[in-house]
């Protein structure tokens, strides 16, 4: 539940989601669920020349399992909070 909570706090921020098929989508994080499925708004493809078929996509739902990375805004991370939450979560998991 740790990362579910973290992403809920990040709603409204700009992120770049890199998928396992190498497609990278940049957009505003609209919502997330327990599976870390992601809904992005105002979506644009990072490498438009390579992936022109996504040009008209503005909002999308991304299945959590196809995500490789999510690039986060540097000020969207409270590292102390993350460390504490991780210690609490990892114990008794």
């Amino acid at each position, binding site marked *: 539940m*740790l*990362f579910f909570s*973290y992403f809920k706090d990040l709603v409204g921020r700009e992120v770049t989601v890199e998928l*396992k098929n190498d497609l990278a989508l940049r957009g505003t994080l609209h919502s997330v669920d327990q599976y*870390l499925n992601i809904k992005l708004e105002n979506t644009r493809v990072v490498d438009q020349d390579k992936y022109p078929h996504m040009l008209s996509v503005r909002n999308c739902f991304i299945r*959590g*399992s196809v*995500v*490789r*990375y*999510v*690039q*986060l*805004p*540097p000020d*969207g*991370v409270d*590292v102390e909070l*993350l*460390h504490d*939450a*991780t*210690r609490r*979560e*990892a*114990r008794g*998991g």
Partner: protein
Amino acid sequence: MGSEEESAVKEPLDLIRLSLDERIYVKLRHDRELRGKLHAYDQHLNMILGDVEEIVTSVEIDDETYEEIVRTTRRTVPFLFVRGDGVILVSPPLRTA
């Protein structure tokens, strides 16, 4: 107050806990590696890393000589969430003299 329970190293995930706020090396599937500071992780090995360098290794075969050309592509990202299903191993950074 249970603090002995918190710092006891009982299972592999406890070993990773020792690396919190430290730099680590992560081997991923598809010939990728990451080096960065571990800020968070869970039992799936989902992670958040800071100041990350990603190294992607690819091997090309020359058409004529059939020799293997190993290429590495590097990039850096300030803060990265990594989905755990791509993780192979986690370790302290390897010492390359």
